[in-house]
């Protein structure tokens, strides 16, 4: 089985936010929930870089480890998913997540985070693949249709790569080799405990 990962090539990312709206579009993500976002480091200064970030689907995922109700699971593809039926909205995954991935809809007046929502790698949730229930709770399940997450598929500059970790790492390495520079596979060391050096 493949091990699905994301890789944002910051030397390509232009902060066009296509990944963000593609995600909203494909999964009908409501206002205020940002499964994916683009952050610009050193804005306006030489060396400025933008990076698109969402759940990195970590190896030995911290969210999964700290969840008090154990609602996370990792699929055979290495995608970290969770069950909204089990989630109690405690916010612990948010404290543990290195990437700020978990999002909580506002429900009630105070103190009540709704069920956590996060990037599913366009792989839905525990319900049957492609079912209405799955779509309503988690959004699309493209992986089950043999497609990759729409954010990466629609990336304007092919900066955001999705797919098997070894393959996208290889693509990135070849790019770096060819062009002679690369600011690194952002988040890989934290998420997968590996870094890509060319």
């Amino acid at each position, binding site marked *: 089985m493949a091990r699905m990962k994301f890789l944002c090539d910051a030397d390509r990312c232009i902060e066009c936010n296509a990944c963000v709206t593609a995600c909203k579009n494909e999964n009908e993500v409501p206002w205020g929930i940002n499964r994916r976002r683009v952050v610009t*480091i050193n804005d306006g200064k030489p060396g400025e870089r933008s990076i698109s*970030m969402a759940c990195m689907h970590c190896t030995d995922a911290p969210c999964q480890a700290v969840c008090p*109700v154990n609602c996370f699971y990792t699929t055979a593809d290495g995608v970290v998913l969770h069950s909204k039926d*089990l989630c*109690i909205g405690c916010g612990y995954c948010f*404290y543990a997540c290195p990437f700020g991935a978990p999002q909580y809809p506002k429900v009630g007046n105070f*103190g009540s985070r709704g069920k956590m929502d996060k990037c599913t790698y366009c792989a839905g949730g525990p319900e049957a693949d492609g079912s209405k229930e799955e779509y309503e709770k988690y959004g699309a399940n493209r992986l089950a249709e043999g497609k990759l997450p729409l954010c990466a598929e629609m990336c304007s500059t092919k900066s955001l790569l999705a797919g098997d970790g070894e393959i996208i790492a290889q693509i990135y390495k070849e790019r770096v080799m060819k062009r002679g520079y690369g600011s*690194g596979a952002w988040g890989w060391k934290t998420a997968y405990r590996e870094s890509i050096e060319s």
Partner: protein
Amino acid sequence: MASLSRLIRLAVGALAFLLLVSAGPVPANAQQVNPTASSVKEQQLLQELNRIQGRITIPDQRAGVLEQPAGRDWREFRNVTLRWIGGIAILGMIGVIVIFYLTRGMVRLESGRSGRTIVRFNAFERFTHWMTATCFIILAISGLNITFGRPLLLPLIGFEAFSEWSQWAKYAHNYLSFPFTLGVILIFLTWIAGNIPNKVDVEWVKRGGGLFGHDHPPAYRFNAGQKAIYWIVVIGGGLVAATGYTLMFPFYLSGIEGMQIAQIVHSIVAVLFVAAMLAHIYIGTIGMEGAFEGMGTGTVDVNWAREHHALWLDGQNARPGGAGSQSAAQPAE
């Protein structure tokens, strides 16, 4: 005053100057810029600050934190350290109590009951105590569930039931925090007077509070042990409340690191609090004859008062009207 404002002006001026220098004239700072050659590097940023933060267009500025690997340290604390601390504190306390009970047994009223009672806690005090106590117990159980439920309870009752229970436990934890906090505040205000440590407490502590043997070190209304509980409740309660609200209202008070620290403080204080309260509950119930009545009915036997709070009883007797079941309409000084 004048010199101070001059100083401030000077400082502001210097700062502005520095900014000007760093910004430079419009084009001059633009020379030789090759943005590609000098791009930021992830590892370097992480080494510098242990977090990476940038600009983001959505108003939710917390999303500007790209990476905060500190989450890993927090995870270690939550899943390992806290469980050890909590386990040792709570199980340890239970162990101590059991051993103590087995060796010492219930502390008896040595002089037996006099049959005369004296008001120790009025209705308001008791209400405050029990409101806080009830909340505390639920908060403690629901809180412990977050830390220990997954390894201990979940395997027993399964995912759905455990989630269902935890969901309600979370609601209870969140909502009962308000009466609990109110209780802590009322406790603080109501009993502050009797809980200022004084010389008597030193003597009391030196004599081990009379826990061992048949000693009865004198005490005012609250002995040093009770004062310790009071301060644990006030300070511990204050801390769990403050940190709890930080967690409950994320980003109002702090960023993600702050919340991690808040959770660490909250959970450590909470498990120690639970341990302390176990001792309090023990001594207030099966640990000491005649103690529960004070918070149960509000009155205690005069002999109990004499043995455990001699100085307080003296004080009560010295008041106009003396000691009597009807007399102490207002709480002691």
